[in-house]
């Protein structure tokens, strides 16, 4: 067939075309995506203004009691901006969050612990058992963690179990000892890294990764990306906590490109949907 022959010819011609054309196309796609994120940033700023000024009434009442324990992961370079961290904690107090675990991999926040606690007179340092105690409306419990409480803590707990194993092997009981998850939890508490599992983890950094947050405490934690600490806003923070407190069910009924990227630009969906759907059906076949 003429059409398929011409496509085959163009395919073999393209195999010989220099990759400069591909580079240009790649740069173009990334330029379009960057523009899209800039537009999304503007939409977020407008939304932040609407939330902060109280125009969006649904954020007025939040059942913050559902959020028992919140974790904040900050990129270590951003964590040096203590004034930003203090502002964030002040916002969390205003929202009503009671227990916060701050994490950065290098331990910058841990080193600034005294400064932070001094500036926030209502905050106190986490101690074991605090998660069960009732707090008055103003107090916030703060925990400071770093990679010392992550993989390094697991290695320390392993050594504690190892010593226990050696002591057992000296005794009369010569049965092979296999440690369980419950014993690992106890060992982590014994080495000082046994805090509670957060319900929600907010990541302030360029990418949505937990940057080494203690793995043992991350099993069923919701992880939400908030962008960089530099551009932090009150609106998205309130929205993230509000969304967590709702019961959500997702049935994924929209097209992938549109759902992931175009949720704020709903008008484009109708026009793009038809075009993308046609190609989607064909591209899935092989």
């Amino acid at each position: 067939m003429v059409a398929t022959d011409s496509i085959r010819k163009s395919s073999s011609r393209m195999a010989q075309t220099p990759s400069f054309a591909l580079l240009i196309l790649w740069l173009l796609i990334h330029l379009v995506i960057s523009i899209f994120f800039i537009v999304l940033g503007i939409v977020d700023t407008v939304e932040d203004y609407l939330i902060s000024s109280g125009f969006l009434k649904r954020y007025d009442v939040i059942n913050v009691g559902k959020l028992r324990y919140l974790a904040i992961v900050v990129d270590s370079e951003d964590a040096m901006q203590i004034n930003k961290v203090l502002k964030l904690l002040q916002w969390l107090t205003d929202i009503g969050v009671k227990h916060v675990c701050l994490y950065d991999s290098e331990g910058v926040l841990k080193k600034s612990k005294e400064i932070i606690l001094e500036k926030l007179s209502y905050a106190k340092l986490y101690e074991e058992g605090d998660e069960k105690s009732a707090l008055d409306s103003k107090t916030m419990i703060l925990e400071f963690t770093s990679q010392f409480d992550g993989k390094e803590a697991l290695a320390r707990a392993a050594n504690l179990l190892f010593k226990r194993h050696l002591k057992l092997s000296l005794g009369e009981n010569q049965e092979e000892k296999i440690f369980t998850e419950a014993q690992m939890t106890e060992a982590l508490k014994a080495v000082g890294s046994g805090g509670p599992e957060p319900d929600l983890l907010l990541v302030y950094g360029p990418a949505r990764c937990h940057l080494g947050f203690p793995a043992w405490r991350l099993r069923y934690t919701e992880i939400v990306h908030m962008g960089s600490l530099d551009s932090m806003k009150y609106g998205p923070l309130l929205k993230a906590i509000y969304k967590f407190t709702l019961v959500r069910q997702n049935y994924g009924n929209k097209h992938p490109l549109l759902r992931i990227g175009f949720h704020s630009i709903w008008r484009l969906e109708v026009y793009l949907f038809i075009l993308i759907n046609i190609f989607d059906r064909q591209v899935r076949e092989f």
Partner: protein
Amino acid sequence: MFLIRKPCQIHSNQLCAPDNTMEKEGICKFKQLFSYLGCFLRKFMFSILSVGPIPDHIAFIMDGNRRFAKKRHLLEGDGHKAGYESLISILNYCYQLGVKYITVYAFSIENFKRQPEEVQLLMDLMVEKIEDLLRNGSIVDKYGMRLYFVGNLGLLSSTVRAAAEKAMQATAHNSRAVLLICVAYTSSNEMVHAVNQAIRKNEFDSVEEEHIEKVPMIKINDIKRHMYMSVAPDPDIVIRSSGETRLSNFLLWQTAYSPLYSPTALWPEISIWHLIWVVLDFQRKYAYLQKKRKQP
């Protein structure tokens, strides 16, 4: 580099029956053309993506099969079968793109708590699909794929365990692509197993009590070496379908610098567009992630 290695084939056998009428033949030729265009478009898009960094290892949490079955009013088993078809599609796309390692969260230790009929259905499906994968001409042959079954395999029935071990042995000589299937797996179980193994490897024949403090300590690398997932590098990306934002006890040790993506599509609805979007976003963050990985 331009990665259209094999030209797109016209799948005439699949689209056109031999006894078509003139009119149906016209429609059939049109379908062939569209199919060819689709294949060409896919390869072209992958060639553009390949200008930038391609992830070496992608991990998938295949969530949403049961919700898919409910949504489409299917039997529950059909949701899992649709999930398997989706997995094969995604594997094809990933390996064509140049991803070498793919990890999938097929069955968690927590899933044993589901209804026994559902667990049995999943186990039977797993055995059936393992046999399909080992046949000539399957995707394992196509990409020279090595299979690993990662998890506490002792919790599986002897039939499933035997099928898994047979698959691992049969594909042990392959090295072009790797598929790690997490079965009877949770990250906490993996970490405890690694600690137990590290303790066992570190012990001395006899130690006096006063010398216990002088015994060499277990280090992070000792634990890492005994992880089930030590056969692959840490994932570059984690993708969880159906919009959930949790890791659900999956690769918690390995994902410190692996961005998590949560497309809202259910697993059987995941498509090439999700993969393309995720890889493009990964390319935007690549420099930052590399810098973080290289830090001590």
